[in-house]
């Protein structure tokens, strides 16, 4: 799509220079005078009764100012309860009648610990070094309790219980049914049924979490700087938990070094650090270290699907069945969010009439799983897209052809799936061309020439994954646009940036909507002190919601300015045009009244100012979407597998993506590329592994393997933009899309490369040892034959 004004232009980012000079301001760069530092003692056991916490030696250690155990913390603040997570919209209740049990999470463990890494005690000292010294002096008595790590095991009747007062470990459960799946399966020409497991991995942003809190001695107000995606939600939570009026609390998310969903949750430390600052009357800082991040920040992805597809002889899918078990970890702080996303993205771009899904969410003695870039979608897409390839093999069809045959066609838009989305609206795909995306991805990946190079030893295969993504979920986002007397425009929005380039893209939107120059716009976000209301940057929502809120506010400012300018020039508003930040009478472009002069005209010092007009040329807007808008994408990848060593090499990776109207193509491509690499990490390298005792085996970056530049494939991207009819900008969200496809696409490509050997990929990551194991098993089962030296 060609640029339309500033929208669609690949403007360079205004964020960069400051960051490139090392002048960014991340949470750990904020160090108020006299700031203390906190460290946390964390549970070394996955499940145990805590019978005694002895802080007496720790509090006497050098430099220690205070120490807190669970009982002390509970008396001062908390626990962590999120009422929003309990809310089930009535239409969702009617559709799937879910069981939703959301537990309060203690800020520090009191009587029990339920996962390794759970905070048990906090020490506050003059430095982090001294605080960590004191942790070693804390004596905690634990009594072992039985451990359950595997979510399927957790659902067995004799499994150890995470919540002793519950009858089982089921935190959330629901069923969805449409059409007549039983009849469809009975009548089918072909069926496939498999168990696929999406393994656990996580966001692991390079900047870990962190919190700094300080009470202003002048007015007693509390300021909290947090590496958070949702500073306003954190403020609202802290106000409740610490008993502050919201206006006496300011939460700032300054520069944030990546979030990817992980920093959209609220954690015990977010509460405990401000609590300590208030109790001690001194600023307190806590910066999560990497070991804490891997064990205690939220994980993602772990689901087991028993999925079945039924098709007729033409490859038309008649029915889908899926029995899903989701591992919640030790707590379900966010309720339905992730498991319900898995349901509403299971059908993806496909038009399937009969569906039968069961979801059970199990508590286990593992770290909490919560939204991580994709939030339930990559898991479900892994299962469905793997099943599609199994079905194609069963039918003897090309897997891309099978997909195309079953896709919702553009002329079916808007298309109702029969499901209800999490926001309570009927799930209706607003726009998109899924077959077009598939064709584009095939064209981009251009697999034929690469496939022709396949040999016995180095086998080459191609894989696809298609998905839809509900983006821009409500309830709202807020924005405020103001024109300063000098002509500068300040845009405040309720989200926060973790690298998405909001200062650039939102300025493009505002400048266009208002009629000013891009360089005159300054965007401010991530600060509850700048804007009273806000929701936050999660769930691919900021462009859609804040973007449209800005358009509404800017339009109101422009109309008001026009009215005042007309008074100033004594002509009719209809005869005025606004461009490049100045009004001109139509037909007289030489006469200019700068917008800043209009703002200046409203100054209280101006005796000629119009009566009854407020002094600021500004407007605020709350944008509430009717429901989400559906982005979509198709990934295609060609891989080579070294049969003897099991090493997988990505030869080429292609993404055709639809995120509606693109505001800044460079930034949009960057979002896709980054998401793809996180998906590649999950597909090939990253896995959070617990042993049977619930110990995290991958507790450092030596074992939790993030991909590096050497693992990056050749990447080909294309946008196939179908504007959303649901919002004035026509945009759809794009933050998460890139991360959704890779685990499925790469697994499909590896299986394709090794299909002559009879290999079936059922879980990742596909490291060389697992790939060799698949080959050995397939050969042993007599599916194929392969000669290698070692076997």
């Amino acid at each position: 799509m060609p640029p339309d004004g500033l929208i669609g232009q690949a403007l360079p980012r205004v964020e960069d220079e400051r960051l490139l000079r090392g002048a960014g301001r991340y949470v750990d760069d904020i160090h108020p005078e006299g700031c203390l530092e906190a460290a946390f003692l964390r549970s070394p056991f996955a499940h145990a009764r805590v019978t005694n916490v002895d802080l007496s030696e720790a509090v006497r250690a050098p430099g220690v100012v205070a120490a807190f155990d669970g009982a002390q913390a509970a008396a001062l603040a908390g626990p962590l309860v999120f009422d929003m997570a309990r809310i089930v919209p009535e239409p969702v209740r009617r559709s799937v009648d879910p069981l939703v049990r959301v537990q309060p999470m203690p800020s520090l463990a009191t009587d029990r610990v339920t996962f390794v890494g759970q905070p048990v005690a906090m020490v506050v000292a003059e430095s982090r070094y001294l605080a960590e010294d004191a942790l070693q002096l804390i004596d905690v008595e634990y009594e072992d309790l039985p451990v359950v790590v595997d979510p399927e095991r957790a659902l067995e009747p004799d499994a150890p219980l995470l919540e002793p007062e519950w009858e089982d470990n089921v935190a959330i459960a629901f069923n969805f049914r449409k059409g007549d799946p039983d009849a469809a399966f009975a009548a089918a020409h072909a069926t496939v049924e498999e168990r696929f497991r999406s393994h656990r991995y996580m966001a692991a942003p390079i900047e870990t979490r962190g919190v700094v809190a300080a009470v202003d001695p002048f007015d007693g107000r509390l300021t909290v700087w947090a590496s958070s995606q949702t500073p306003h939600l954190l403020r609202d939570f802290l106000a409740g938990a610490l008993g502050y009026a919201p206006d006496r609390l300011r939460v700032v998310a300054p520069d944030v070094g990546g979030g990817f969903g992980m920093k959209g949750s609220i954690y015990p430390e977010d509460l405990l650090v401000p609590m300590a600052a208030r109790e001690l009357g001194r600023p307190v800082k806590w910066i999560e270290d990497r070991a804490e991040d891997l064990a205690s920040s939220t994980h993602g992805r772990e689901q087991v699907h028993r999925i079945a597809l039924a098709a007729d002889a033409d490859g038309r899918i008649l029915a889908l069945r899926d029995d899903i078990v989701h591992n919640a970890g030790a707590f379900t702080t966010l309720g339905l969010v992730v498991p319900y996303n898995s349901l509403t993205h299971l059908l993806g771009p496909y038009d399937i009439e009969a569906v039968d899904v069961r979801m059970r969410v199990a508590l286990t003695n593992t770290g909490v799983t919560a939204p991580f870039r994709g939030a339930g979608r990559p898991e479900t897409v892994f299962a469905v897209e793997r099943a599609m390839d199994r079905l194609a093999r069963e039918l003897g069809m090309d897997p891309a052809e099978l997909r195309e045959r079953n896709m919702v066609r553009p002329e079916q838009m808007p298309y109702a799936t029969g499901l209800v989305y999490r926001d309570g609206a009927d799930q209706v795909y607003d726009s998109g061309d899924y077959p077009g995306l598939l064709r584009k991805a095939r064209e981009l990946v251009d697999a034929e020439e690469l496939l022709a190079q396949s040999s016995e030893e180095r086998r080459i295969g191609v894989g696809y994954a298609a998905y839809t993504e509900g983006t821009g979920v409500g309830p709202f986002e807020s924005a405020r646009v103001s024109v300063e007397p000098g002509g500068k425009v300040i845009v405040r929005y309720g989200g926060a940036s973790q690298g998405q380039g909001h200062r650039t893209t939102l300025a493009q939107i505002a400048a266009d909507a208002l009629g000013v120059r891009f360089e005159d716009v300054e965007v401010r976000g991530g600060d509850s002190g700048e804007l009273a209301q806000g929701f936050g940057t999660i769930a691919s929502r900021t462009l859609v919601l804040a973007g449209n809120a800005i358009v509404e506010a800017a339009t109101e400012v422009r109309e008001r300015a026009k009215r005042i300018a007309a008074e100033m020039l004594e002509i009719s508003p209809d005869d005025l045009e606004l461009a490049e930040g100045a009004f001109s009478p139509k037909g007289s472009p030489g006469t200019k009244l700068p917008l800043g002069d209009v703002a200046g005209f409203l100054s209280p010092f101006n005796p000629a100012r119009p009566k009854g007009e407020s002094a600021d040329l500004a407007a605020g807007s709350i944008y509430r979407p009717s429901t989400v808008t559906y982005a979509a994408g198709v990934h295609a990848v060609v891989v080579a597998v070294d049969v003897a060593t099991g090493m997988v090499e990505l030869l080429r990776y292609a993404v055709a993506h639809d995120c509606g109207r693109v505001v800044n193509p460079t930034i949009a491509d960057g979002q896709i590329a980054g998401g793809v690499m996180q998906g590649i990490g999950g597909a090939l390298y990253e896995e959070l592994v617990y042993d049977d005792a619930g110990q995290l085996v991958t507790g450092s970056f030596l074992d939790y393997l993030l991909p590096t530049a050497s693992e990056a494939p050749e990447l080909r991207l294309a946008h196939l933009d179908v504007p959303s009819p649901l919002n004035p900008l026509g945009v759809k969200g794009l933050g998460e899309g890139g991360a959704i496809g890779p685990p499925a696409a790469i697994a499909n490509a590896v299986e394709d490369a090794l299909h002559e050997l009879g290999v079936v990929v059922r879980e990742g990551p596909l490291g060389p040892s697992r790939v060799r194991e698949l080959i050995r098993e397939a050969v042993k089962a007599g599916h194929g034959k392969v000669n290698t030296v070692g076997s």
Partner: protein
Amino acid sequence: MKPAPFAYHAPDQLDEVLALLGDQDHEVRLLAGGQSLVPMMNFRLAAPEVLVDLRRVESLRQLRHSGDGTLAIGAGVRQSALLREPVVTDGWPLLSEGARHIGHPQVRSRGTVCGSLAHHDPTAELPALAVALDARMVLASASGTRERSADEFFVSYYTVALEPGEMLLEVRFPRCPAAAGWSFKEVARRRGDFALVGVAALVEAGDDGTVSRARLVFCGVAERPFRALDAEQAVVSGASFEEAGRLVSEAVRPMGSIHASAEYRRECAGELAARALSEAWERATGG
């Protein structure tokens, strides 16, 4: 993740280093590149009471090529020297190639050759290279120096033949036969990771065009560098490289980890052996 307190010394004379190292009443550790020790200290998995930093001891930073062709690498020499110094890249190309697989430039520019050898992670490249190249290890303490072969030096996981109060002063690589073909092959999860399996191979061609001498030493398949004697012998007796690989797979008894099962390492060792022998042979015969 901050280290526990310790006392710090950075003497400029080797005598002082050895005297400090001889302190039997405290846990004393040497600090050279710190690329293995400091992470363990940050995790508080190691908490030595005294650190003796080698950085000021000029004599340890030497890399000497002596008249008899021996390459002597002092305890202060960085791993990057193996990739940079023409004397190494020309005379010991296997050592240079193997060192290319150690971490990344930011690690090799600080990590030392002797530090990696003394640390002895059995999945690390340098211990296997030292055994493959018949290195001699010079061990020093306040009471004098002694020499051990690399084969004698590596005992088991993170354990070497250093006595309390003793340090690895220098490693000496004898002249590498000019006619030897060489190869280093490694499988790792990502570039720069410790090896799942790695192999250093050396092959010499006899006048009759057959293999006259072969050397195969692995990292990642045992508690110490593993030399595949049976396979070496078989190759000299005319066995194919694939056959030698099969013998390797039969001989090794690796441990499994989350990154690679024992079975994987076993079969991969054989495969890499065949590939490395074949590449080394090509180099030996100018193929």
